[in-house]
């Protein structure tokens, strides 16, 4: 029968897509490795400039010296104390932001009147620089953990909130219509349609929020803290421990890079049903 022939043709097409995606993945890895060259070149120039005396080695230690300092700091365990302090603050702040912003975003996205009353206020807060508010947080919450967590919470909230709102607003009405035609209850409409349909947008908001959390915590630690990578870098500069300062900055780069790939990976896992969309570059 014709239908059967067509069925198998479709199947053939799918198999083809599978093989295609494997070769595509290999190609992607190979293509990504092309990016390493420029990084290596950067390190080489970094190594050369102080060695050749073009830049004073007191201000710019060589790359190898920075790496050795970094390894020593890691071996002594000192570095991890600061990494952990920064991560802890940004994670607590971020989780709090998720707990507040996502439910709030659902309310604002679903109930137009709710958004009408809150939008101007939210936009005013959102468009005020987080860093400008830092002194206020320090003033009210002191130099302890609370002020750092609060500023991270504040910084991470907006991406989450805005993406949740737009996720809910942009749920394709045809899904709602289809679900209603099958007699779905209001409670299930939220759980089975609105929530999964807005997940991609919320997850990408979470990715941006998590990155902001790390960014903000470093800045906050530079201004008022006794631990954390931000404090470490700032403190190293104050005490003219330049190799330590560069080692701290390098640690931040590595940490940011790991976080970015981790978040992209999580995002892909959470939206597995959307197919292969390369989001790594969006980072």
């Amino acid at each position, binding site marked *: 029968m*014709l*239908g*059967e022939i*067509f*069925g198998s043709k*479709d*199947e053939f*097409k*799918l198999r083809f*897509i599978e093989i295609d995606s494997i070769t595509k993945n290999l190609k992607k890895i190979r293509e990504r490795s092309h990016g390493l060259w420029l990084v290596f070149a950067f390190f080489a120039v970094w190594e050369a400039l102080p060695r050749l005396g073009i830049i004073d080695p007191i201000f710019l230690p060589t790359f190898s010296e920075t790496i050795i300092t970094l390894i020593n700091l890691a071996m002594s365990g000192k570095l991890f104390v600061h990494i952990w302090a920064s991560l802890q603050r940004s994670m607590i702040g971020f989780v709090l932001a998720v707990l507040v912003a996502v439910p709030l975003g659902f309310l604002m996205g679903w109930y137009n009147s709710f958004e009408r009353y809150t939008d101007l206020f939210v936009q005013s807060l959102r468009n005020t620089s987080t860093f400008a508010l830092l002194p206020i947080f320090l003033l009210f919450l002191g130099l302890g953990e609370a002020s750092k967590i609060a500023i991270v919470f504040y910084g991470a909230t907006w991406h989450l909130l805005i993406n949740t709102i737009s996720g809910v607003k942009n749920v394709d009405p*045809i*899904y709602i*219509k*289809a*679900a*209603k*035609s*099958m*007699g*779905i*209850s209001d409670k*299930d409409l939220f759980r*089975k*349609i609105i929530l*999964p*349909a807005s*997940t991609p947008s919320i997850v990408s908001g979470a990715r941006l929020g998590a990155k902001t959390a790390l960014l903000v915590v470093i800045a906050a630690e530079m201004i008022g803290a006794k631990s954390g990578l931000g404090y470490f870098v700032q403190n190293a500069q104050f005490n003219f421990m330049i190799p330590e300062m560069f080692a701290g900055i390098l640690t931040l780069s590595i940490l940011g890079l790991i976080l970015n790939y981790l978040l992209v990976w999580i995002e892909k896992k959470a939206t597995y*049903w*959307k*197919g292969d969309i390369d989001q790594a570059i969006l980072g």
Partner: protein
Amino acid sequence: MDKIKSESVKKKFKLKDGQEVNNNGAVSNEIEVLNGVDLSIRNGEFLVVVGPSGCGKSVLLDIIAGLTNSTSGSVYLDGKKVEGTNIKTGYVFQQYALFPWRNALSNIEFGLEAQNVPREERTKIAKKLLSLFGLSDFWDRFPYQLSGGMQQRVAIARALATNPEVLLMDEPFAALDAQTREILQNELLRIWEGTRTTVVFVTHSIDEAVFLADRVAVMTARPGIIKQLIEIDLPRPRDGNIRSSPEFADNRHKVWNLLKGEVIKAQKDWELASVYAR
């Protein structure tokens, strides 16, 4: 006995602020889509609705499904007024409307979930439908992994899963290529001949209408009413060969003659609308 009865169903839509429409010189911010649709659909009948663009065919389906209210007039299903959605009706959309986060199997299970059918039974019913559509091997695929024809098969299976007494289909094959379209028409007839569900099927294609229908309802240009009902006297079961028969051509001709004037009227209406839009 009549399964569905539509009594002088009218539907007006309010336009957005600032938008206006000119109805024979009378400026209004409402647009009249249905202007008193009277229609009786027999139990177990395959009724196809054709009409020019914008005549309110889809709105009529939405009203029968209980997804939207009529402005005046009523639709009755088994003698009971339609108010809100009903588990007796299944709906198939042109855009498939499969939930992309669910695989084929769990898409088909959706309506059963809404009715709290236990998991095992849900899966059993869904698997049976998958095999009916020749998709058993694809149960775990997500919509993006399926071709258009396969997606629409899953969507029809999903609508059939709750064993509806009425199946509403809104241009379900319009987005498919011509070959897939014919194959799905054949499959639909094969399945319908087994179930004898009452089907209300909206299409722009006269060939499709004549091939599928017991009766074709031709609608007028907006504001739509039923212009005429045509009995399609082709024998069943039908297969693709019937398309080249002279009887098929006769029926086709009949439908097109009724529709032609309305299509021209509708086009003038659109031209007028675009003049006002400027």
